[in-house]
């Protein structure tokens, strides 16, 4: 690890203790810059070789009243010298920038955990807003923790004396002071963040200078004041050789779709309407116009998918992205895409619901909406990434399946995946298999609804192709000709055919893998973002000899062909989900097994410990 040499300092003065895994949570007012602090700590930790996993947690309000409980924004990250898959159940360390942050986050801190507070914020007004009758820093109520009281604001202002920015701006640098403090405490280098500041504030040198000074001041303060008697070292994780970058699920989703379009040989069209937590995908894609990516910020969710379908009709990769409420609005158009058999992908970055629900919190409760939430028999394929970096691969998969089978495909991410991050082993582009799409060009024997025998997909015949002029629409189609048809026999046939087409995709998706023994007492069956917690729970229990395995679905409609076999090899199948048992309902109906649903709908991901407790009931 690159050591920081600060003039005249000896970093080895104090005891350096080795730790395997640490979970830190930065919490403060939503204007305190906690997300930035968290992402910087994450990036630095990744670069020095830790395995990492992160969980940002922020309020729906951009700036809730300063100092209020609803305005608290947090960022939790787990970094380790071993392979980790979750952002950690409970923080070992809490950095609380104000009383409200302390109040809302303290219940999660482990007993005896490190608690760093900005004492400057513990003034009467803030204490009152947080509901503290008296300062908890003085009444002994925090005696169960290792409390470090640091006047972060005062120290930041002192460090910034002489920097030519307004007082208010100077105060804003306090998050860098806190970051510097934590960098010392966990023995991290300053270089990556200094480089980042240089780059980010290149046009505002005064701000760059302020942040640099604050970061160094925090680090030096921790180093020189002996407020901390020990600091900690978390070694490198054994990570597979390769090139890495840290990536959030939403970033991986966006570039995954750019990649999917490239691999298909067709340009990407993204129609979207701003919605939390999916908007970052729109932001990211709008930056990639040099790939020919066309982003369209529509007047509403309906127009967003309508334009994507229109683009698909012309031979583009039609993509739309939203969260649950947006899916509700898009439903009728999804039906049109099913009827006209055009390839589009619908991204749903799920959030807490129903209705507006919990816009910034995670949930997995749109599975049945994706599966059934349209009028009549309206089948669509569903894929779901399992981790932030897996978002890349599943995006490519969604494009591959949509174009091969000429069908809408749902892509179910969620707030936790979208905003969470982890190191990503960057694939070599030449290793990504191409799947160039083919358009129908031959007018001889062309019928818009004549099907490929294996996939049952209809030809993609795009406007501009001479001789293939034809009409499609939402009215029932006559088999083969695509003419309007109200014939009862034809309708029955077509309804079954559309369902069959989706089921045929099973021939094109990989079988589900079992982690652990291939048969045994308990199988944890998960889907989507619960992968990390489930796998970690199984890993921990198996280390203690328990007969527990897990399997994770990344394809939910159709299911992998071998799913029934896998489920049948275990005495108990437990299905943990962040909903009231939606996958469990599908599995029970499909395989007639008495699967146990384990539900949680708190807007938060599963903790490893709660999964272990549940499994133990069945061992």
């Amino acid at each position, binding site marked *: 690890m690159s050591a920081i040499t600060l003039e005249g300092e000896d970093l080895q003065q104090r005891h350096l203790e080795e730790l395997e895994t640490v979970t830190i949570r930065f919490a403060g007012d939503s204007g305190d810059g906690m997300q930035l602090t968290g992402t910087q700590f994450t990036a630095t930790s990744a670069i020095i070789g830790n395995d990492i996993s992160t969980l940002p947690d922020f309020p729906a309000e951009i700036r809730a009243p300063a100092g209020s409980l609803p305005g608290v924004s947090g960022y939790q990250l787990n970094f380790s010298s071993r392979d980790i898959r979750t952002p950690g159940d409970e923080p070992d360390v809490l950095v609380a920038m104000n009383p409200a942050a302390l109040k809302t986050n303290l219940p999660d801190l482990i007993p005896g955990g490190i608690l760093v507070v900005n004492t400057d914020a513990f003034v009467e007004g803030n204490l009152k807003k947080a509901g503290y009758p008296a300062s908890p820093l003085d009444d002994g109520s925090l005696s169960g923790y290792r409390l470090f009281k640091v006047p972060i604001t005062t120290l930041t202002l002192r460090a910034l004396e002489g920097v030519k920015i307004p007082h208010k701006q100077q105060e804003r640098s306090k998050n860098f002071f806190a970051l510097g403090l934590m960098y010392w405490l966990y023995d991290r280098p300053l270089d990556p963040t200094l480089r980042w500041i240089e780059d980010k504030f290149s046009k505002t040198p005064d701000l760059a200078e302020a942040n640099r000074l604050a970061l160094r001041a925090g680090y030096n303060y921790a180093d020189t004041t002996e407020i901390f008697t020990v600091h900690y070292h978390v070694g490198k994780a054994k990570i597979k050789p390769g090139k890495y970058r840290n990536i959030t699920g939403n970033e991986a989703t966006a570039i995954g779709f750019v990649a999917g379009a490239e691999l298909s040989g067709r340009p990407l069209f993204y129609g979207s309407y701003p919605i939390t937590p999916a908007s970052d995908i729109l932001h990211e894609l709008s930056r990639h116009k040099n790939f020919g990516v066309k982003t369209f910020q529509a007047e509403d969710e309906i127009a967003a998918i309508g334009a994507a379908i229109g683009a698909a009709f012309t031979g583009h990769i039609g993509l739309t992205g939203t969260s649950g409420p947006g899916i509700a609005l898009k439903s009728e158009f999804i039906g049109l895409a099913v009827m006209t058999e055009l390839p589009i992908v619908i991204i749903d970055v799920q959030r807490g619901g129903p209705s507006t629900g919990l816009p910034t919190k995670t949930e997995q409760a749109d599975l049945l909406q994706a599966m059934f939430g349209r009028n009549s028999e309206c089948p669509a394929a569903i894929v779901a990434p399992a981790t932030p970096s897996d978002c890349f691969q599943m995006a490519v998969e969604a494009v591959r399946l949509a174009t091969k089978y000429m069908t809408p495909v749902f892509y179910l991410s969620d707030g936790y995946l979208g905003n969470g991050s982890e190191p990503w082993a960057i694939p070599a582009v030449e290793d990504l298999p191409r799947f160039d799409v083919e358009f129908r060009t031959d007018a001889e024997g062309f019928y818009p609804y004549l099907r490929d025998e294996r996939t049952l997909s209809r030809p993609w015949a795009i406007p501009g192709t001479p001789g293939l002029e034809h009409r499609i629409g*939402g009215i029932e189609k006559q088999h083969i000709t695509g003419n309007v048809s109200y014939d009862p026999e034809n309708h029955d046939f077509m309804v079954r055919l559309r369902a069959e087409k989706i089921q045929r995709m099973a021939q094109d998706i990989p079988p589900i893998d079992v982690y652990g023994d291939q048969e045994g007492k308990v199988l944890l069956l998960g889907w989507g973002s619960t992968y990390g917690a489930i796998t970690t729970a199984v890993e921990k229990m198996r280390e203690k000899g328990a007969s527990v395995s897990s399997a994770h679905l990344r394809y939910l409609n159709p299911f992998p062909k071998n799913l029934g076999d896998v489920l049948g090899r275990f005495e108990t199948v437990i299905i943990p989900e962040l909903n009231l048992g939606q996958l469990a309902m599908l599995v029970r109906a499909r395989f007639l097994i008495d699967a146990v649903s384990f539900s949680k709908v708190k807007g938060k991901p599963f903790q490893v410990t709660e999964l272990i407790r549940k499994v133990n009931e069945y061992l």
Partner: protein
Amino acid sequence: MADLEKETNGTNGTNGAHTTDAPVKLTRQDFVSDQEVRWCPGCGDYSILAQVQRVMPELNIPKEKIVFVSGIGCSSRFPYYMDTYGFHGIHGRAPALATGIKAANPELSVWVITGDGDALSIGGNHFIHAIRRNLDLKIILFNNRIYGLTKGQYSPTSELGKKNKSAPMGVIDYPINPLSMAFASEATFVARSIDTDPKHLTMIIERLARHKGSAFVEVFQNCNIFNDGVFKPFSERVVRDERMLYLEHGKPLLFGKNKDKGIRLNGLHPEVVQIGESGVGTDDILVHNESDPEPNLSYVLGRMQYPDYPVPVGVFRAVEKPTYEDMLEDQIKRAVAERGPGNLSKLINSGETWVINAEGETV
């Protein structure tokens, strides 16, 4: 599954007859599809279809580059009857589909066929935004002031007090004016015509087609089943000259059999005047300027209604400004010029990266 292949009839496609290399002058018949037209006999839609099919060959656009998009309603069956590419969408959403089609492939000639309920009620939002973006779309609104396909409920353009199936005691919703909506949406081309005047309609459709940018025309269209004769009081042949005003760019707003009546502006209000009476001369008459950068006067004209005024038809507004799809293509060209064509490897390797070597060291 039953084998239904034998039951097929017709070809909602083609027999591959038009794949010659040399451009052949198309005829009206080339745009007639093999589908049976299923509008009620006597419906005004027939006239609009005929005029569109008549204009098409004049545009010299290959059939394969033309797309008709529609929503839901009687008018929205239109694409099935055109032997071009066609997309019969969902209620009110044709502009959304058309936006995607045109933005994705600007080379296509994209037409939107809609009705008063489709465009102004369920699809009001898409109508506004497609127009304000100035995509090069040709929007034809069939206004029959009634819901025909659902059998006779009032529409957003039905007259106040009108009695019909869903308002047996009379409509209490104030009607909306499609032209006002188009002006308010910053339309660059706004026109109006009527199904019973094929010559005028043909001329307007051709103007519509040749405009670059969102082009909107309201066509008064008679529903002879549920709202028969709704436009008759001013459009009937015997009264038409006195009760309708044919707009012509650069010409004074004169009407009447002998062109002896005109529109004069009194402050912000138009008034009908008789030439030669009270000292009114032709010079007093408002001269129509469809290319006025500001739509204010066109808006005033668009609101003139019978019986207080003659009903204007023609081109109210025709101005040029850059289209959405051109600006989008420009941005793409600029992005490529500035950053080079997209390189997937560069993209996925962007940001802060690090390498773990075989010894597990970060390098």
